[in-house]
Structure formats: C-alpha cells, structure tokens
C-alpha cells in the first residue's frame, strides 16, 4: 500500500478509541502489576485506563502472546488407538503499546519460525493479532541504537508516538487503517511531525551503553574466534540460571513435554521455553554433555545471536532491549561483554 499520511489522535479521543476496540476484541497491553507497583507486564486490559503508555521495558517480552511460556500443542486420549485434538484459537485480538525493540523481537521470531516447515502455532497466533507500536524513553540498560532498532516499525499495523496531548499515529497496513477508522483523528501537521521527530532525537540521545565497534563487526570477531579468555571470565561470574534467555525477545529455543490428566483419561503435549544456558540443554541419554562447560554455553549464546542467526537472517538476534542485563543475577551486562570481545579481538590483531 502507498504510505498514508500520519494522523494525530488527542488523548481524550484515544481513550474512546481503545474502548471502541475493546468492545469488539480483547486488547493486550502494558499494565502495572498489582503485586509490584512500578513494574509492568503485558496483559489483557480490563478498562482503557489500564493501559500504561509510559511503561518501562517489561521483564517478559510480548512474544508470550504468540508463544506462551507453556503452550499446549495438542491433547491426546490414552485410548487404543489414541485420538489427537489440536485446538487452534482463531479469535482476533489487539496487542497494544509494543516498543520498537519488541516489534523487532517479533520480527526475529517471524523469520525463525517461518522457516519451512513453519511453526504453525506461532503463525496462526500472529494472524490473530493487530499490532499497535508505541515509542518509548530509554533507561540506562537500553541500547537499541547500537543494533539499529530504535525506529523499527516492522511488523506493525499502527505506530504511536507520544505527544503533549495524545499521539502521532503512523499507519503501516490496511488493517491498521481499518482499525483507525474507529478513532476521531486529524491530519498531522508540520508541527506534529516536528514534535515526533524531537521525541526520537531525545530518545536516541538518551541511550547510554555503546558497542566499541559496529554490530556487524561482532559477527566477524566471533567467526575468527580466539576469545576463550573472555568466555571463561564471563562464565566465572555466570550462574547458568537461564534468566538471560527466558527474558529475551529473540530467543526461541523450546522443550516439548507430555503431561497426563490425573484421571488417566488422556493428556497433552506442551511446548515450553527453554534456555541454552541450562546445564542439561545439550545433555544426551548416554550421559555425554555437548556443552558441559559453562563457558561453552556462554559462547554458544553469543554465537547464536550475533553470528549464526545474524548470518542466516541478516540481522542480529538482539534488539537492544537490555532485558538480559537487567535480569542477570550475576550482573553480567551484554554491552560490557561485547566490548570485552571487541577489545580481545583488537589485542589479537
């Protein structure tokens, strides 16, 4: 479609817009955790006022709406022969308030899971959703500018940039345009565009952590290798808890497990998130562990994100969201490790 002009939606109209959407389909968006004020998570909004537009990065990324932490793949009976039931939910919903980095995380999984044979459950859930992005203010962990996601709009249907009163709305798809018909908007003028541009400039200026080399260089550095000292010193601090993986929007490794109903009538197979940092991730039944050393697992996470998947999909499998660094029990910071790698490579050269 040709790029339609941007619109402006004043704050009061925005609430009515949300209510109009919510009358038709569920809206999942950032809301404050009742148990932990000041912390936010993506959840179904009960009222339009639940939407917390100035939320800081959630602990768990919004990918959970398309691939739940524990997702039922199918259920089975224990009859002879067993009967399988795959229930696919097809009801539409809106995912609201996704930051540019998290849109990039969804894009990363779109690429990975659409490789044939496609992961149909992800694809089917993605088809249910309309995505409304939202621009943000960085905290001290964010480094989106270092991986080029600060102004990412892919994939989304509508994108909101906060303004003094309401939002500047970019329309990115026909579905987005159709959704926006429910809203009372006006055409964006030069001043509105300038205000949005100012928002983006301030945002970029607010990013603190920096890679000491461009991100594409990190792939080359990993490819050349000779980085064992950095892997080992990082591993010395790491607990192999897996928090860095389970909070990461681009991680997509999983486990598959069966569960049986207590009455033995049947059961179900589930897909659950998994982490390559856990000790048993590459352990086989004969007892051999293919990544038994912690530094091998640390190295693998880096090679996967910044080398293998980077080369395969032509983008780093890191969105700069900073979740892994925020979540790390050992205070290991991704940008810090990147810079140690860069320094080690420079010393070699």
């Amino acid at each position, binding site marked *: 479609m040709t790029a339609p002009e941007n619109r402006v939606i004043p704050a009061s109209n925005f609430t009515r817009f949300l209510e109009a959407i919510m009358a038709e389909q569920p809206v999942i968006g950032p809301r404050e955790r009742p148990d932990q004020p000041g912390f936010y998570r993506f959840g179904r909004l009960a009222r339009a006022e639940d939407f917390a537009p100035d939320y800081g990065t959630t602990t768990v990324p919004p990918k959970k709406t398309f691939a739940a932490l524990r997702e039922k*793949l*199918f259920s089975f009976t*224990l009859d*002879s*022969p*067993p009967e*399988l039931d*795959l*229930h*696919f939910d*097809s009801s*539409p919903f809106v995912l609201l308030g996704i930051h540019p980095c998290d849109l990039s995380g969804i894009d990363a999984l779109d690429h*990975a899971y659409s490789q044939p*044979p*496609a992961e*149909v*459950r992800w*694809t*089917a859930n993605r*088809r*249910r*959703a*309309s995505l409304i992005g939202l621009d943000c203010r960085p905290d001290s962990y964010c480094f989106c500018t270092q991986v080029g996601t600060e102004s990412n709009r892919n994939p989304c*249907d509508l994108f909101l940039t906060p303004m003094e009163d309401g939002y500047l709305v970019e329309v990115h*798809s026909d579905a987005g345009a159709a959704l926006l018909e429910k809203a009372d908007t006006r055409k964006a003028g030069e001043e509105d565009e300038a205000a949005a541009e100012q928002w983006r400039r301030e945002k970029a200026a607010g990013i603190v952590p920096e890679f000491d080399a461009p991100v594409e260089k990190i792939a080359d550095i990993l*490819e*050349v*290798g*000779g*980085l*064992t000292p950095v892997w080992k010193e990082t591993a010395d601090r790491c607990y192999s808890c897996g928090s860095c993986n389970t909070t990461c929007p681009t991680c*997509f*490794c*999983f*486990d*598959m*497990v*069966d569960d*049986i109903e207590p009455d033995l009538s049947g*059961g179900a*197979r589930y897909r659950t998130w*998994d982490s*390559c940092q856990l000790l048993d*991730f590459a*352990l*086989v*039944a*004969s007892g*051999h562990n*293919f*990544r038994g050393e912690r530094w*091998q697992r640390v*190295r*693998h996470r880096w*090679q*996967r994100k910044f*080398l*293998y998947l980077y*080369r*395969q999909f032509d983008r780093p499998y890191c969105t700069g969201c900073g979740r892994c660094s925020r979540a790390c029990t050992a205070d290991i910071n991704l940008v810090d490790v990147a810079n140690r790698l860069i320094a080690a490579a420079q010393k070699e050269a």
Partner: protein
Amino acid sequence: MAEPAKNQAVDRTRIFYVPERARVMTTRQEPSATFVELGFEDGRPLNHHPGQFVQVSVFGYGEAPISVCSSPTRPESFALCVQSMGNVSRAIADLTPGDWVGIRGPYGRGCFPIDRMKNKDVLLIAGGIGMAPLRGLIQFICDNRDDYGRFMVVYGAKTPSDILFREETEQWTENPDLDFYRTVDEPDDEWEGRTGVVTEPLKEIDIDPENTIAAACGPPVMFRFIAMDLLKKKLPEERIYFSLERRFKCGIGKCGHCQLNDLYVCQDGPVFRYADLLKRTEAGEVWAPEKDQDTA
C-alpha cells in the same frame, strides 16, 4: 492482515509437531535393547533414506529420536532398535504388538550417501547402539549388492550380551556379500570371537583409498579414533561420514537443542561428512576436549 486461521483450515499434515499414528506389529527383546517393528494405519511405507530417523511418541511419556534400523527396500514395515536409557526409551521397550505410537518423520537431510557409494568400496563401522542406523544401510546394500564394490562392516559391542541383532549378525559372518568383523571390548567365558575395541579389526583391513567411502556411527569418543585410523589409510576426509547424536526435541531445526555451531544436527544431519565437521569447533571439542580452540 490475512483472515484468521480457522480450526479446520489448519492442514494437520503440515504441522510438524503432530505425530501420525503407527501400530506395533512385532517386538523382540534383545539382551540390551528392544526391537520394534511398526506400520502405519493405512499400510503406506515410511519412505525413508538409510540414515534418517523418526521422532517416536509414546503418548504420556514424550518423544525421542530413533534411527530407522530397517531398509526402505523392505517397505512392508519399518523397524527401530531401542536401548532403555530414560523416560521414553523405557516406554518403547514396554510396547507390545497392537500398541500405538506416534511417528514424526522420517527426518534428516543428511543421510548415508547411497548414491555416492555406488560402484565404490564401502566400509561401515558401528559402535554399540550405532549399529541401529547402519543396519538399515547394510540391508539396503545387500538388497542392491551389484551396485556396490567391496563391502566391509566392522561392529564393536561392549560385551557379548550387548551384541544387537545377534542372529542376523551371525548370518552376516557367513554371508559372502560382505566382510563382517565383530568384536567385543569385554569377552565372557563363552565368547570365541574377536576381542578389543572397534578400531582393532579396522587396523587389519586394507582399503583402496582412491575408491572407498566409509561411514561410522557410535559413541562420541569413538569418532576421533576411527578418523585417525581411516586417515592413516589415506582415506580423504571428505569420503568419511559420521552419524551424530545430540539432544533432539523438535527434530526439524526449530528448538535449538541439537545445534552444532551453525548446523542443526537434526536437519542438516544426522549424517555429516568428516570434512565438514572438522570446520566446526563444537565437533572438534568432543573429540579433543583438551584443545580449546573456539573459532566458529
């Protein structure tokens, strides 16, 4: 965005994680493994290539990757040979005729190179449960014997009671179609055959390095010694094939468990050329863990 997917609109056969039902036709207990013969409900063949595996579901227990140990030249059924190692494999060992399992696959783009092996001498080396995938290949070559040159098979088991396919391997010893060498690491009082690790008989075998293709399957540590022996015989690295084991969950390159550097063992393998493995540090580390090189 596109129309939301409707329940019925999702084509079940294209959902990779949904197994198809297969019925247990026969089972046979071997001292250290269970042999299971399976067939699909509609009697269609599995249509696999030697070296491929299937993901076997025992509902309620889970799934495990198991090599197809029969040959596609015998399509009436397909067979598995399973050692009880844990949750799923123990459940497979408990199956009886008439029971149902789920099957996904056959999977694995990296198979034994049956076309490349044509008109060449073929040397196969199996250690332990590694005999399972190779047995399918042995049957295949025996069924197409005229297409292949000399045919040599070396098989090492830990003890005499660990020998898989006991009767069949006895027949291979007599079979003029192949030179079969069988050895055990630890003999018992009745054992009259060879003793020693699998590389011992390998040392005796003279090969024509210009015209031989070798393939091996066995425990991770075995590969290094086999490779050393084969290279000593001047066999080039690109004519040596290894079938690898890793932890598998999805079997189709999604779950990440089986990754070996940039390769997914489930999808790119499980059979690889040694020449390609040599370029991968995560393969080398298994063979020579004391050397920590970490080039990708």
